[in-house]
């Protein structure tokens, strides 16, 4: 009876562990009450980390900008200039119009998404465990594993695309682009349908690419963390330094290390791709067809 209970506990606790890690601290979980309209069920953890990282980004960059000198730059200014130069090069390479918004937008996207992705490299249990200490039961620390965050950014970019399309080409030009390409005026509905899919695919792919990569990455970190957890759960009554636990621990360390190192590439790459595609999409919005 007791044995059966423990065996059941193992997988069940692993599932609980994963589900727990993938649950946002939304209003319902925070207040332990249902909401009449699930729309208002704000993900407090996602917004908290997004805002905090955003403030860290603009704060530290503002520090460099406020004291920016054209003489010999300090270490931090030098680093900031390195990133600004990098972003500026990308913008100048891909975007040929003149816009005061696109370069700072690209900089914000790159740095902010990088920082949000970087939360993935913080040990999966560290912040949630600290949260538990102060009574916060659920916490997802990587904002970009939240669809709301990813779509929030891609939809903003999408709105900018529409804004610039209309601003540059006028309402008529934009409408012409929507209805008369690629098959001429006799195929108007079909053209529009095609264009609609084409345009909607942009924000959707932008958001889902970022979300998918980070969500999967986070999930794998969680699964790697399960190694010692499940081994520990099985041998809970036994000596914790049993051979099985030690082996599981070593495997977890190696896998975690390997995945984290690989993930350094992923988080940078995803931030870069999001930025790059934003520049390209906005540059397309600026171009006449």
């Amino acid at each position, binding site marked *: 009876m007791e044995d059966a209970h423990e065996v059941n506990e193992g997988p069940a606790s692993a599932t609980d562990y994963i589900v727990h890690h993938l649950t946002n601290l939304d209003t319902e979980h925070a207040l332990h009450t249902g909401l009449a309209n699930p729309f208002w*069920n704000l993900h407090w953890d996602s917004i908290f980390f997004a805002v905090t990282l955003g403030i860290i980004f603009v704060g530290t960059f503002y520090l460099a900008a406020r004291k920016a000198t054209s003489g010999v730059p300090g270490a931090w200014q030098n680093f900031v200039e390195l990133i600004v130069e990098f972003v500026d090069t990308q913008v100048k390479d891909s975007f040929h119009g003149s816009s005061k918004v696109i370069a700072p937008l690209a900089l914000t996207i790159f740095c902010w998404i990088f920082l949000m992705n970087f939360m993935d490299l913080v040990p999966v249990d560290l912040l949630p465990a600290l949260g538990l200490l102060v009574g916060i039961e659920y916490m997802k620390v990587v904002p970009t594993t939240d669809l709301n965050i990813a779509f929030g950014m891609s939809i903003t970019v999408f709105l900018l695309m529409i804004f610039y399309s209309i601003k540059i080409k006028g309402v008529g030009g934009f409408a012409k682009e929507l209805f008369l390409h690629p098959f001429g005026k006799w195929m108007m509905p079909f053209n529009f349908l095609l264009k609609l899919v084409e345009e909607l695919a942009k924000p959707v792919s932008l958001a889902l690419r970022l979300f998918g990569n980070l969500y999967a990455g986070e999930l794998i970190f969680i699964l790697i963390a399960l190694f010692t957890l499940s081994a520990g759960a099985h041998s809970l009554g036994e000596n914790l330094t049993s051979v099985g636990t030690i082996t599981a621990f070593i495997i977890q360390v190696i896998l975690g290390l390997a995945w984290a190192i690989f993930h350094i590439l992923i988080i940078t790459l995803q931030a870069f791709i999001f930025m790059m595609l934003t520049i390209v999409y906005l540059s397309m919005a600026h171009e006449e067809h």
Partner: protein
Amino acid sequence: MSINVTLFAQMLVFGLLVWFTMTFVWPLIRGAMEEREKTIADGLAAAEKGQGDLKQAGVEAGKIIEEARDQARAVLSKANARANDIVEEARSEGEVEKRKRLDSAQSELEVEINRARDELRQQVATIAIVGAEKILLREIDEVAHRAFLDQLAADL
């Protein structure tokens, strides 16, 4: 995993961050960078110009030195010629002087010789007279033979 108000909150935050970056971060950093780029470009241009100037100055200096050397050469040859002239002049002047001195010495000598001769003649005459006087003192009257003896001295 549901879409809800979080999305709009994120859009708002995103917009604010972009606005902040656009207003307070990007222009300052880019401004500083562009200013530095300009400073460096100016510095490089100035250095290049300086190098050109230096080369030009070198060429000019060479020209001036060459000119000075020519001038020095001319001055030197002129000076040499002048020195030769002076030496030549001095030599001829010396020659003239020498001749002059020689001539005057010669003439002085002649005068001196003549005078000495005259004196000697006088003295010889005097001695002769004295001698004669002594010889003739006893028998000849000095006054009577004086004219005769003077005639003799003048013929000597």
